[in-house]
């Protein structure tokens, strides 16, 4: 154990999903066991940090201004699926049940966690309502009170009286569950069985 090793260990422990044990294993691996992989990793990290950002249009991960989905001309631009996080979008893409566009909020309304409308990607959603010819929104947010309140907020405060069809998935999703961890079959049936938002 050296001061530099300790510092790296502390940094790694801050990463989501890493406990002390895994952080220790990674630090050992990088510093002691396989020093030659280190250079490549540092380079990759730096490069990724440089080029990966947010899609200006939908909030998805992107290299450049637009993400791969927004840039894809074969997608149905009149339909937009709203999700909380990028991994939700990836999960739905993997189910190949959706051919429309997305909008990533980067969270859900939760006053307890200090998340209000200003913290979410709503401003670009309002912009899209003006510019894109959207006919349908599918709200694929978590099946809990915060997800439900966020759906309500989008319907009432963002979309308002515009004649746009709004549905929300929920069918088959376990109560309290998020989109990312649902399996493809569940997600497909959830998307197909979406119901009108009252």
């Amino acid at each position, binding site marked *: 154990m050296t001061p530099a090793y300790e510092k790296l260990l502390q940094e790694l422990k801050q990463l989501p999903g890493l406990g002390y044990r895994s952080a220790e294993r990674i630090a050992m691996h990088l510093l002691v066991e396989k020093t030659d992989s280190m250079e490549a990793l540092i380079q990759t990290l730096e490069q990724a940090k440089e080029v990966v950002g947010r899609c200006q249009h939908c909030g998805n991960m992107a290299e450049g201004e637009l993400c791969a989905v927004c840039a894809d001309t074969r997608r149905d631009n009149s339909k937009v699926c709203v999700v909380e996080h990028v991994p939700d979008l990836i999960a739905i893409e993997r189910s190949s049940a959706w051919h429309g566009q997305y909008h990533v909020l980067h969270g859900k309304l939760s*006053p307890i966690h200090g998340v209000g*409308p200003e913290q979410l990607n709503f401003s670009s959603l309002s912009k899209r309502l003006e510019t894109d010819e959207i006919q349908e929104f599918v709200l694929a947010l978590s099946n809990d*009170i*915060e997800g439900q*309140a966020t759906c*309500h*907020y989008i319907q009432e405060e963002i979309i308002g009286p515009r004649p746009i069809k709004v549905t929300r998935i929920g069918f088959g999703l376990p109560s*309290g569950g998020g989109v990312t961890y649902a399996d493809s079959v569940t997600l497909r049936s959830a998307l197909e069985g979406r119901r009108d938002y009252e």
Partner: protein
Amino acid sequence: MRFHYLRLQNFRNIAFAELDLQADRSFLVGANGQGKSNLLEALGLVTALRSFRTQSMSALTRQGESSFAAVYSVEHESLGRTELEVQSGSAGRKVQLDGQRVSRLGDFIGRFPVVPLSAGDLMILRGAPAERRRFVDLTLSAVDPVYYDALRNYHRGVAERNRLLKKGGSAGELSAFEAEIAPYAVLVGQHRAAEVEVLRQHLIKVYADIAEAEEGPELDFKPSVPLGDVESYCQLLHENRRRDEMMGSTQKGPHRDDFNLCLSIGGAREYASDGQQRGLCVALRIAQARIFHDRLGLKPVILADDVLGELDPHRKAGFWKACPSDYQIIATGTELPQDAESWSVVEVQAGSFKPAG
């Protein structure tokens, strides 16, 4: 269901204990403070991962240790012979059913029904409304996952709304949460009204066995707001915004409901004698056991913590009349019961447990 054995580690004053519980009736005898109630408390965790003696799970871990573990071997009507393991401590909680991790409490609650009777039950009568809500909520949650889910969402929603009230959230945010709270509030209210009526009917029948005379026990649901539909509830929340903002929290709703327990002479808290109060508590618990049995199709285990010895002979006889004879009973006391020969006796001393004889 029935307990077959229990293995405990670092639970309260018990460093390690292993106990055979196969008898229909087990009696743990020992002086106060030796660990009898602690053991019963550990058995009581299996219904909802809640202690019947404290609301703090951290109080259950032995001093100087970081977590406790309890392994239960259970004979279960639908699961057969099952091993249940509960670990809880500073690093969180872990429940395993036959080696399979149970991640959601909602999937677990009510699968292993036990009914604890203790002196603490008097708080249901004498304590704040929260004590009565806790009793009703646990009973209803155990028999109905829909209720459990609605209650959880309701409380969560109210907590979110309270934060908005404190920090001055926008009208749009308040509306969004209120609209989603309302259906859960209505569901919780409807369930409470219906199920408390069922509980009331059981209570009246059971109490008739226990009481010395016709004492007319009653149990009423006293909702904080009149039961209505989702829309009217939404409107109520909207109308109360100003007041709630001033008070800093949501003032009305199912989280303020109460339940009134009384005898024909008047409210149980004010008018009933000590013996009547104890009798009512026992009747409430047996009524709870009957609901568990009816709704879950499982015979609950009765955990009687120093309660039977405190009842007068008439009410004690009433308890035995009201409690189905095929329920497993695990009881504690500082002295052996008079019918000691019908119990499998365990002597308890300083956190260790030895079968007598």
